[in-house]
């Protein structure tokens, strides 16, 4: 907005309305479980970045004198060490960075592609819609893990392939959600009003449709982040994901299972972090759903 426009806005100071987004934010911050989820997530993220600064250890350094020791304050091995004598505290933090990054980036890419694709298909309608959605159906039918295994066999193990493979599948669901919502939004009078102006399709889609259909997508994507983290963990567990010396929660858990009897903390600690993250996202997702869809308010 121009400064002049801003001045005009301020002329009506005190009479500013509350936008739907702001109202939703108000409801969200009043939701204790959701705010606990946010706090937990902030804490885990902070841990991921601050932990390496606190610990004297390097995630790749082997402490050959202390192999597979239980959590202890001795030598600052707070989470103990693994079978190669590497410090678990910094490795969990490193795994957190990789897992969260995969979760967030993949989700973000899926959302952008899915929203635009779904909105365009839904708004265009007719044959364009048919073709676009059949493409989605075909991609849906491809088994995810099969596709990933092929990709990995052809191109070798690579973290970006993991991004790509998961993202390639997850945007499909978002596109379907958004297309359905767009079909409904297209029937509304405010979209018809904009169309009757002869407004360009890009304006109608971006200004009128997308802001009004992203609510369910936001909720879905909050629940998508943990799904993606879980898929990555599963791939790493199978040995198809992140490669040593890099690590992720999935890989740590996979390695921890091998020594479940002798060193349970190698499984328990990364698994606890993963579980806590799942909880946090699910609480946030629930909170967002209630905040964005205020059915019970009269």
């Amino acid at each position, binding site marked *: 907005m121009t400064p002049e426009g801003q001045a005009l806005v301020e002329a009506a100071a005190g009479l500013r309305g509350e936008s739907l987004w702001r109202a939703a934010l108000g*409801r969200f911050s009043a939701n204790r479980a959701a705010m606990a989820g946010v706090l937990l997530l902030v804490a885990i993220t902070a841990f991921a970045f601050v932990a390496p600064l606190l610990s004297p250890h390097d995630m790749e350094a082997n402490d050959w004198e202390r192999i597979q020791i239980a959590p202890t304050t001795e030598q600052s091995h707070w989470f103990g060490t693994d079978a190669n004598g590497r410090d678990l505290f910094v490795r969990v933090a490193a795994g957190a960075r990789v897992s969260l990054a995969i979760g967030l980036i993949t989700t973000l890419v899926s959302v952008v592609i899915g929203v635009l694709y779904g909105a365009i298909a839904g708004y265009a309608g007719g044959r364009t819609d048919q073709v676009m959605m059949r493409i989605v159906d075909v991609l849906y039918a491809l088994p995810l893990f099969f596709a990933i295994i092929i990709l990995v066999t052809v191109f070798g193990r690579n973290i970006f392939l993991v991004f790509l493979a998961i993202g390639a599948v997850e945007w499909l669901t978002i596109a379907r959600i958004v297309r359905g919502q767009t079909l409904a939004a297209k029937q509304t009078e405010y979209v018809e009003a904009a169309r009757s102006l002869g407004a360009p399709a890009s304006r109608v889609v971006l200004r009128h449709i997308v802001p009004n259909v992203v609510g369910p997508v936001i909720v879905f994507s909050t629940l998508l982040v943990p799904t993606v983290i879980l898929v990555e963990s599963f791939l790493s567990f199978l040995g198809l994901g992140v490669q040593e010396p890099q690590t992720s929660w999935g890989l740590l858990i996979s390695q921890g299972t091998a020594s479940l009897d002798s060193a349970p903390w190698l499984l328990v600690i990364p698994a606890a972090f993963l579980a806590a993250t799942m909880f946090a996202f699910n609480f946030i997702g629930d909170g967002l759903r209630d905040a964005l869809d205020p059915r*019970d*308010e*009269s």
Partner: protein
Amino acid sequence: MSTSPAVLSVRDLTVRFATRRGPVDAVRGVSFEVAAGRSLGIVGESGSGKSQTCFAIMGLLPGNARVGGSVRLDGEELVGVARGRLDVLRGSRMGIVFQDPMTALTPHRSVGSQLCEVVMRHAGVDRVEARRRALEIMERVRITDPERRFDMYPFELSGGMRQRIVIASALVLRPALLIADEPTTALDVTVQAEVLRTFRAVVEHTGTSLVLVTHDLGVVAGTCDEVAVMYAGRIVERADAATLFRAPAHPYTRALLDCRPRLDDAPAARLRSIEGQPPSPALDLPGCAFAPRCALAETRCRVERPALEPLGTGAGTRLAACHRPVPP
């Protein structure tokens, strides 16, 4: 007023909603009675509390509502009664008709089987008897060719036909009271006329009492014996229909009648309008709620709330809550 005992008796009914922004009083002390075989129209604009009054009687308010006062159906108190008892009463003693007939019917079952189910569940009769009663009631609500319609599905019927099926299912257990909330608002005028005739016929022939809630004074004119006009959660005027339409006492009733263009008037260049908006239900004005929009208001109207009282002498059934009623 009729001397026969009241089928429905409402005393000091209040409805308060707890919302995120504090309490909202939708109904602020409403009292009325409906005698057997009589019909009452409750008229008001949105926010007048007419629908909340209706929902309070039916016991169908959402969880954040608190109901005060008393609602008696055939002498039985309904406020604070257990949910299970209300469910029984709603089927057998109180028939309900909503605005949208499509949502009141199950889409995947024939209308006849839906009627029969109500009869069999509540009256404990067999299938043959249930079918007989269903067909009888379909005829009563003026459905032509009931045998054929019996096996049709809701989507195969037109809007007016569906609404008559809903009325039939509300009546099939011969309730003492029929409550209809905006029953013709979703219908075309021609269809509305026919549905209103149905209501009239039902009251005349079955002896059921009727409470009809609507925003349209025209709708109650030919359908109801008595009319209550609501504004901001209170009844501002109550009178028998002929009196109310001939000589409205409350300035609000008067303004409502004046601001509506009529087919039988000489067209005027401008409509008389009521300026401003109804007050927010979250506020409680000290005086008359209509005073800020009333052309006749004086200082007293703004500080002292008028009570709903009989007007003049010998006026019989007329009640108005106004310090400065319109002279007849």
